[in-house]
């Protein structure tokens, strides 16, 4: 066999096909004997097809019925994921919105919260009924403080909270409507 850099030959694909199938026409066989490129191609095709024959006789592939069943199962799972995707999205969105609202309330009511924390600190850690009484009075002070700051936050920063509450309300209304519709 001569491997000294043969040039490509236009008959190579025909030669490969014949080497794979084992059907040669006389003209092509003569050509292969005289053409280094085709001779090499034919030898290579035989070798590689021997490899394939080994694989095909010895590989263990799953049964076609099992493959079909697995494909169906996978398709159903994907369809299920697709179906619950909007629900999960709304769920996640409502969590985020709730979190944002909570942060906004903390920021807007910071003076009241700060006052409450200070009064809590001044009151110290008391136990029993004395503590509960003190806590009740502190809570009263917090509420009154919050009420006194009401017009201020309503005029300055009330719009984002109102918007958030409106969106939340809208989603709740849609969810209730859809649930009612399905029933």
């Amino acid at each position, binding site marked *: *066999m001569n491997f000294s850099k043969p040039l490509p030959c236009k008959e190579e694909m025909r030669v*490969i096909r014949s080497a794979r199938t084992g059907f040669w026409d006389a003209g092509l066989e003569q050509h292969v004997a005289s053409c280094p490129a085709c001779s090499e191609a034919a*030898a290579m095709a035989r070798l590689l097809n021997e490899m394939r024959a080994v694989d095909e006789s010895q590989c263990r592939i799953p049964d076609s019925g099992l493959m079909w069943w697995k494909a169906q199962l996978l398709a159903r799972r994907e369809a299920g994921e697709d*179906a*619950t995707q909007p629900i999960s999205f709304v769920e996640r969105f409502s969590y985020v919105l709730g979190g944002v609202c909570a942060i906004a309330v903390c920021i807007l009511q910071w003076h009241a919260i700060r006052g409450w924390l200070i009064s809590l600190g001044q009151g110290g850690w008391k136990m029993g009924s004395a503590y509960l009484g003190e806590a009740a009075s502190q809570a009263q002070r917090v509420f009154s403080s919050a009420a006194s700051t009401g017009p201020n936050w309503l005029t300055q920063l009330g719009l984002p909270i109102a918007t958030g509450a409106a969106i939340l309300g809208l989603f709740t209304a849609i969810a209730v409507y859809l*649930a009612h519709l399905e029933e």
Partner: protein
Amino acid sequence: MWKELSVTEVQQLDRAIGAADETFQMDEQSFRAFYDLTARSLWSYLYRTSGNATLADDLAQESYYRLLRVRFSDPNHDYMKNYLFRIATNLLRDHWRHAKVEPPPPSERDDAHPLHNQPASAAESHIESDLMRAMNDLKPRERQLLWLAYVEGSSHREIAQAAGLREQSVRGLLFRARARLATLLRRRGLAPGAAQQ
């Protein structure tokens, strides 16, 4: 993780599952016939191209699933087989790209696979082993081109489609890949002519 589903969600799931049953263009009988005809050659292609039997198992299954999901069905099995090999080639390329790893070097390849432990005559075993190592020394694309052309009998156009190349460049690449494999075999003292005997 499973979560509690409402009545609405369950009904929505039921409808989706019903739709999934209509997802496949191919019916079970056609699929099984096509699978039985092509599965071994696809596995062999993936195994010899990747050098990894486990990866070949996974990608072969994924390829059939993708074929079913694209809602593609053609009575011409050759055309479908070509399409299947194109899917498999893309999956293999994606695997290497996403895993950000190059195909393993020859020394780390899956030589422990049961295929390599089959009882065979000493001469057959030697030839098979040398040929496998020579194949593994080629670049993945060279292995793909050689396998598609010499084993699957794909035309230049089909190879170009499967490997994502221009049809005009396939001939040259194929010729160089074959020349490289011949050189590697010669270095191992295995001339293709000798292997036939």
